[in-house]
């Protein structure tokens, strides 16, 4: 097993407040890892650091690509995304006024080329490219049962489907790592069970690494092979679901208050 993403001594300060302090973590090829912790522990901040939405105060993030190790500190968000990191957002950020198909096509932008003259004067090659990527997008949507909603506007979809579309959209980028920020938030138990199956299927069929923030413990314990626990910005524990469930510090800080 090789390490895909390696994080060392990561720190983020907002003014005087330390949101993330000295976090060390790593993600391996083809595994499903969960990141848990109480509200305000810094989980989303950590996500934003890893995906380049915010810049770390210090520490290093390294990504192993086919061309070797690449430091991600300070790299632009879209470049990090194009290295193979897809994500979803805690408070769904679909392109609301666009169709389901367009949402997916947009995520594929970096994966194909269309010259300016080619597109504005509609060369045969343009039509071929369009046909091909549309086919790809529709196939992807089919896997997730969204083929009938292709021409719907994203804002008109039910909440659960919107969450699902967001996952499909990030998969369309052909990511190596997928960051899912509370995918089960606001879902009922039935929808959560559905989602659990979906995430497992994604991870298995697409052979990608998934890092998941989640509050729903049943989902986390079911899915994750490893768990990181974050509290007050620093790592409290790391281990398999069983280890975490038995970890005294975790129980005290996190599970304890729920039990």
């Amino acid at each position, binding site marked *: 097993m090789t390490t895909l993403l390696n994080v060392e001594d990561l720190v983020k300060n907002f003014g005087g407040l330390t949101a993330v302090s000295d976090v060390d973590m790593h993600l391996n090829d083809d595994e499903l890892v969960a990141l848990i912790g109480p509200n305000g522990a810094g989980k989303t901040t950590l996500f934003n650091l890893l995906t380049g*939405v915010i810049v770390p105060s210090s520490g290093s993030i390294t990504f192993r690509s086919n061309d070797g190790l690449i430091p991600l500190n300070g790299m632009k968000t*879209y470049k990090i*995304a194009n290295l193979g990191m897809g994500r979803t957002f805690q408070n769904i950020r679909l*392109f609301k006024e666009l169709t389901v198909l367009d949402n997916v096509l947009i995520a594929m*932008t970096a994966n194909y080329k269309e010259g*300016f003259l080619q597109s504005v*004067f509609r060369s045969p090659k343009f*039509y071929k490219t369009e*046909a091909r990527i549309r086919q790809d997008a529709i196939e992807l949507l089919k896997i997730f049962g969204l083929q009938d909603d292709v021409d719907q506007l994203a804002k008109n979809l039910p909440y659960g489907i919107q969450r699902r579309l967001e996952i499909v959209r990030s998969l369309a980028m052909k990511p190596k790592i997928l960051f899912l920020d509370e995918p089960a938030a606001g879902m009922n138990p039935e929808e959560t069970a559905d989602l659990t199956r979906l995430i497992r299927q994604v991870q298995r069929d697409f052979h990608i690494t998934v890092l998941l923030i989640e509050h729903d413990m049943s989902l986390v314990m079911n899915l994750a092979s490893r768990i990181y626990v974050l509290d007050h910005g620093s790592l409290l524990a790391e281990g398999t679901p069983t280890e975490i469930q038995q970890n005294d510090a975790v129980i005290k800080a996190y599970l304890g208050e729920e039990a």
Partner: protein
Amino acid sequence: MILKANLKYNICWLILMVAGFYLMNALILVGVIDSFLENMVVTIGINIILAVGLNLVIGFAGQFSLGHAGFMAVGAYATAIMISKTPTAGAFYLSIIVGVIVAIIAALIVGFPTLRLRGDYLAIATMGAAEIIRIIINNLKITNGPSGMFNIPQFATWPVVYIMVCVTTIIIVNFIHSRGGRAALAVREDEIAAESMGINVFKWKLAAFVLGAATAAVAGSMQASYLQTIAPSNFNIMESIAILIIVVLGGVGSITGTFVAATILGVVDAALQNFGALRMVIYALVLILIMIFKPSGIMGSKELSFKRLFNRKNKKVGAKS
């Protein structure tokens, strides 16, 4: 299969364009369209070129630019200067290209720093940039300063303007429905999500802005050579606002709406020609009332689409069989 299906729609559009051309031609021959009406139609055409470009920037890329008249001025003066020196058709067409190139450079210089700003801040910065362009033209010798240029040879007859309207609209509409256009739409919808999907937000903002500026320059060239006289005051803030009004009235994000609004405003303007000072009062009232009763513009974000028309017909046929 895909090629063939698209060919059908493209032929429909082509027929529409050719029909419009011959209709106009016939009406002029029969004498229905006199020089006053021809002037109205050409003005509408130039406004369409301007407003379609601005709609790309505002309605599709979501960047509130108020500096469109500045880029129009660049094209107008490029053409005026070049064909006043060499009054040949060749120089005229070359001047359009020169105008477009200079406008692209100007748009890069303006857009590169200002497109980092958001919303109204961007609007006010682009407005300022366009004013700077106008003030520079106002103080140059080659542009004949504030009094402007006269007796510019007329190469931009109505057929030339008609063809330019078609060409610029095709370019912009095709851009919108391509990889770049979709990226621009993503930028409009949600910059953070777009960036996280691997889209270079700044690059596509700039691309839309530059393309809009390039078509504005074409409109400027048309205006200079059709009206045969231009002055820096033709390209002030009020001109940028006039273009913005067409875009919003038609519907932000609807090219069809832009055509409809430019036509309505052009006709209203011509019809009120004899009302003197009252003309602008009526115009202002009409504007306020349309906005209050149709806040998202005449067309909203809807478009005329042959594809949809055909699909609707097919569905009906399908339902019968």
